[in-house]
């Protein structure tokens, strides 16, 4: 029986991951912001077979509470095997560039919050000498574009942080999985026109669970984003800076 902590459990991708673990009878500790949504997710994963489900409503931007949250989760489940960090927000780029507080807010909810959690979790897992830490980042972190560089910068920073953490924890047998989804059809992207490149949360969740099991390092989902981003990263900056992007 796996003991799984999910932060940002109301996100579509995280909820789909929770379902997969529930099918296998896992014990789940779900942290999210909205209580009624958490309750709906809780009922669902219970019916699907989760052996234990605990839900806690918390705003994860509030880093002061992180230490207690993690300790309580570990106590409730009698230890932790897997942690998935899934919370974050996209923001509207035009609003962000007009406001310093909004911009810093996006950095806080997509980077600072995760850094705080990861610092605590890294120490926990390092002492335990086993376990998996998975974090949902984004292909947007691979290169800054004018349409979403604030979000992208937070995610890019997170990727670098994870890379260092992976390097540190590899000696302790703890895997650090950096999940980089491309476009995913979720409430977060409701206002976007969907095309061929869009993936469903269920698809992404399946890859996440497989990657955690296999202890992979950096995972693009769906797989073809690895090659798309390879091309995008290889465009020389003098050319890249003049380019326009559909979204």
């Amino acid at each position, binding site marked *: 029986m796996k003991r799984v902590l999910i932060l940002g459990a109301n996100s*579509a991708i995280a909820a789909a991951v929770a379902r997969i673990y529930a099918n296998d009878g896992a014990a789940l500790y779900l942290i999210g912001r909205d209580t009624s*949504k958490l309750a*709906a997710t809780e009922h*669902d994963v219970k*019916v699907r077979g989760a052996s234990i489900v605990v839900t806690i409503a918390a705003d994860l931007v509030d880093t002061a509470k992180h230490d207690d949250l993690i300790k309580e989760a570990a106590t409730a489940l009698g230890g932790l095997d897997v942690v998935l960090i899934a919370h974050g927000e996209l923001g509207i780029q035009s609003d962000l560039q007009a406001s310093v507080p909004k911009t810093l807010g996006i950095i806080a909810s997509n980077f600072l919050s995760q850094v705080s959690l990861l610092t605590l979790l890294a120490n926990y897992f390092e002492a335990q000498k086993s376990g998996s830490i998975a974090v949902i980042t984004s292909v947007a972190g691979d290169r800054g574009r004018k349409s979403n560089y604030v979000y992208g910068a937070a995610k890019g920073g997170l990727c670098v942080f994870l890379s260092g953490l992976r390097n540190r924890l590899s000696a302790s047998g703890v895997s650090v999985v950096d999940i980089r989804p491309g476009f995913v059809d979720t*409430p977060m992207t409701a206002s976007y026109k969907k095309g061929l490149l869009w993936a469903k949360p269920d698809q992404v969740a399946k890859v996440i669970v497989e990657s955690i099991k296999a202890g992979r390092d950096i995972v693009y989902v769906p797989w073809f984003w690895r090659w798309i981003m390879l091309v995008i990263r290889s465009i020389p900056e003098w050319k890249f800076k003049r380019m326009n992007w559909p979204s």
Partner: protein
Amino acid sequence: MTRLESWGRLPRTSDSEAFSLHWQSDFLNLVRRKGTTLLPYGLGRSYGDSCLSDHGTLLLTRGLDRFISFDVENGIIRCEAGVSLAEILKLVVPKGWFLPVTPGTKFVTVGGAVANDVHGKNHHVDGTFGHAVCSLELIRSDGSRRECSRIQNHDVFYATIGGLGLTGLITWVEFKLKKIYSTKIDQEVIKFGGLSDFFALSRESEHNFDYTVSWIDCLASRENLGRGLFFRGNHAKTPTLDLQAGMNAETRTKVRVPFDLPSLAMHPLAVKAFNLAYYHKQLAKNHVSQVPYDPFFYPLDAIHDWNRIYGKRGFFQYQCVVPFTSGTDAIRDILSEISKAKLGSFLAVLKTFGDKPSLGMMSFSRPGVTLALDFANTGDEVLKLFDRLDGITTAAAGSVYIAKDARMSASSFRHYYPRWHEFAHFVDPRFSSSFWQRVTKL
């Protein structure tokens, strides 16, 4: 974005807005804003325009796909309306439970099953899906929420069962499952030569078989008119521990129709050849076997997007029911018309309904015999044929199934659904569908 279609890909509607519901609160946030009319859209298995909304907003309910509770002891399940029957089977079959009533595809949502008060091969025993529903919750566009059952808000309950999704958004449904001991079905297939044999077989089978249905060769004429294969079955009684294994059998062998086939594929000669081969495939008069439940209930689910074989122009289905009193004659007349017009296709299904009255004001199922046939969209000639069939159905005091319809006239509708006026009072003021506009327009 891909345009939302109904299963028959008819009629073409102008682009409608689509709004994905992931949480119940999404609906409440939406109705606070002014806007066009609303209509829930699940898996789009309704054939015509009852799941479409010209110039309106479709509420995509597949995001409401959570289970709420499952009483494994008593077989009572409660789930959100966007959960599909396939997802329910996956959960409940390994625990020894089955759907109380299932249509010929498992790719429908629970909300859709309620809104169309669907029936299955066990109508003569268990009635329609609505009969298994204990309670449901409805949110109206004014934000009000009501739980409905046979006791609580019973009038809204009877309007919502078979209510075409027009009475408000169904958020969850609680219903009673059927106990099974095996994933297998004990099946018998019996060849019959004509309609009177069909009626005799139905009478004989209804006492001992939970499931009965017939395929008929709708292109056969004169002395062969109404010949076909009678399928009857029961859930196998021998307890098996392979409930799980049965599920695995289901997920194998999936094919998909990858693109629209040219209309030649449905040429009358090709259909005639298929029907002839299918009828004569079984040499013995009676074939007994044990089959997994999936191919028994859902033979067409193995071919994803099978509606594409009819090509871009789409297809119609005509499903009517006529009371037993006029049954034999009316069905014979309908089959002769179709056979004369040489327009039928290979999906022709005949089944008797039991005498359990449906609960919904707008439910289709009623005591009698029901016939369902697919027709390629060949334009005027097929529409004229339907008008002739409507004449026969109306004269026999029968009805036509709205879930399959893309063309019935307003006056036929009022004949077929005499309680429509009473039902109209329960329609949410912000809800409408292309179908509803078509048949209620004066």
